């Protein structure tokens, strides 16, 4: 079995994992970065713009994606899953499974001829199922690495991709391979998922075609989105009236999610401003319990949205149903006026919250009460888990936005660096690591 020795293993190639890997690599440590998807980039590469600056997400993310792939101290392993973590106290052995791409990664040039030849079209998970790609494809246009992957569950085994590949990279003989990484420290940056849309029956449980989640709206607003514009997915109409339902997956005892997800107010405000730019005639209404704008420049961003004409209505949405033409009807209790009203919209966005992405058990960690990684000293060292030598970055530790994910990623890298030095007596001179 192949074995690799590194100073730090970073699990997860989203914005937090990439930042941690780059910080550690820049300090001269040998780093392995393991990502379960065929490309790094995480959720952030699917987003349109960031708040509160409205900078393009791709413009921030793609340089980091490229940097981790080309960094001399970082070994990048995409389409790999961590299976098990053995050892303790600075001597970890991590078992990793390389999933078969059915494409030889060493010779694939990313030309996409296989993709264009593949006859079958499947829902694109990059576009939340609303767009499409082929069973064999480069995952998305800015994917890193630019290597095709074949989805065997949708493959006809017709061999057309194999015939058209100019370098003979399609390889049906690949099988899963397990390899081991020996490492002194581990940083978990395994990210988040959105709260389950089907859990809230009062809001249609995900069955209403014109009630969408915020990551779908991100794809509509992105230039590479599935429709190339904002359309409602039920029938392709350009929406004129759009509602946001805040706290649709957070601060809700009925869902067992009592915490605030910390990002929903800001992404709803951001999306409403972007919609105003994309659809100048659109009227956006945000139904909210409280608006929480705690970060640098966030309150001003909120005030700007109000000045642009976004309507903020204080109230708790009780239910969402649809009329015979699939227009969503929002029934809301206006808490300041003490009455209940119903309003019909073209499109409704549920401001879903965040839950932990990948289970923690294989890393030997127990979740905290909120389901995220347990952080025993959250005020003094919010990167430290219950297992010495295992650190956490980004949303694996709790809900947070991109700014805070990057801050915690650099904090985790710093803590991991100190830990590695305490365990291996590493001395760093001129950026190189030497063991003494």
């Amino acid at each position, binding site marked *: 079995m192949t074995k690799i020795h590194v100073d730090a293993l970073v699990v997860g190639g989203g914005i937090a994992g990439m930042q941690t890997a780059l910080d550690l690599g820049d300090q001269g440590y040998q780093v392995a970065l393991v990502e379960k998807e065929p490309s790094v980039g995480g959720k952030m590469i699917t987003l349109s713009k960031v708040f509160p600056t409205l900078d393009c997400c791709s413009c921030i993310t793609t340089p980091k994606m490229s940097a981790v792939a080309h960094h001399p101290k970082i070994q*990048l392993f995409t389409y790999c899953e961590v299976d098990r973590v053995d050892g303790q106290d600075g001597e970890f052995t991590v078992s990793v499974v*390389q999933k078969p791409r059915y494409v030889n990664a060493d010779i694939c040039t990313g030309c996409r001829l296989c993709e264009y030849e593949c006859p079958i079209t499947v829902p694109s998970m990059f576009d939340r199922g609303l767009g499409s790609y082929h069973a064999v494809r480069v995952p998305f246009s800015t994917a890193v690495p630019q290597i095709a992957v074949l989805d065997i569950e949708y*493959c006809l085994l017709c061999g057309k991709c194999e015939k058209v590949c100019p370098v003979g990279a399609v390889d049906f003989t690949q099988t899963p391979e397990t390899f081991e990484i020996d490492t002194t420290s581990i940083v978990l940056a395994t990210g988040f998922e959105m709260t389950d849309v089907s859990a809230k029956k009062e809001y249609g449980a995900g069955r209403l075609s014109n009630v969408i989640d915020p990551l779908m709206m991100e794809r509509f607003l992105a230039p590479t989105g599935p429709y190339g514009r904002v359309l409602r997915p039920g029938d392709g109409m350009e929406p004129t009236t759009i509602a946001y339902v805040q706290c649709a997956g957070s601060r809700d005892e009925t869902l067992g999610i009592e915490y605030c997800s910390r990002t929903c107010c800001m992404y709803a405000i951001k999306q409403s401003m972007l919609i105003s730019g994309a659809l100048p005639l659109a009227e956006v209404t945000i139904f909210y319990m409280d608006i929480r704008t705690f970060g640098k420049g966030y309150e001003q961003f909120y005030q700007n949205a109000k000045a642009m004409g976004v309507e903020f209505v204080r109230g708790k949405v009780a239910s969402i149903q649809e009329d015979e033409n699939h227009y969503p009807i929002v029934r809301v209790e206006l808490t300041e006026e003490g009455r209940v009203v119903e309003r019909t919209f073209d499109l409704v966005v549920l401001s879903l919250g965040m839950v932990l992405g990948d289970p923690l058990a294989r890393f030997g960690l127990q979740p905290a009460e909120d389901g995220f990684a347990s952080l025993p000293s959250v005020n003094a060292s919010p990167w430290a888990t219950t297992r010495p030598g295992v650190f956490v970055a980004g949303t694996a530790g709790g809900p947070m936005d991109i700014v805070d994910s990057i801050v915690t990623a650099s904090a985790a890298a710093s803590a991991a660096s100190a830990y590695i030095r305490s365990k291996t007596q590493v001395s760093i001179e001129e950026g190189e690591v030497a063991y003494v």
Partner: protein
Amino acid sequence: MMPTETSSLSRGEMLKRLRAEHGESVERTQQLLREQKRVQQEVCKSIREKAKTVPEIAEELGMKPADVLWYLASFRKYGLVVEEGMCGDYPLYRKAEEK
């Protein structure tokens, strides 16, 4: 990138094994392909001469509008269909010129 292990079986033997292991998904995908080809032909025929909206195509073909939009998004991505103006709040789609 970790080089993926290759089976000691030959390509032919491996394909045979994959067909046996994934027989169910291959059959399901074959049905899906037949359906996709049928829809592609019908949609392209419908919008060859005249650009139409999603609800118009859906009504003509007896399909769900959401499904028509998914197909049109796919056809647009791969250059089979182009947008051609608006009809009210709905974009119009027409079959792209043959290259």
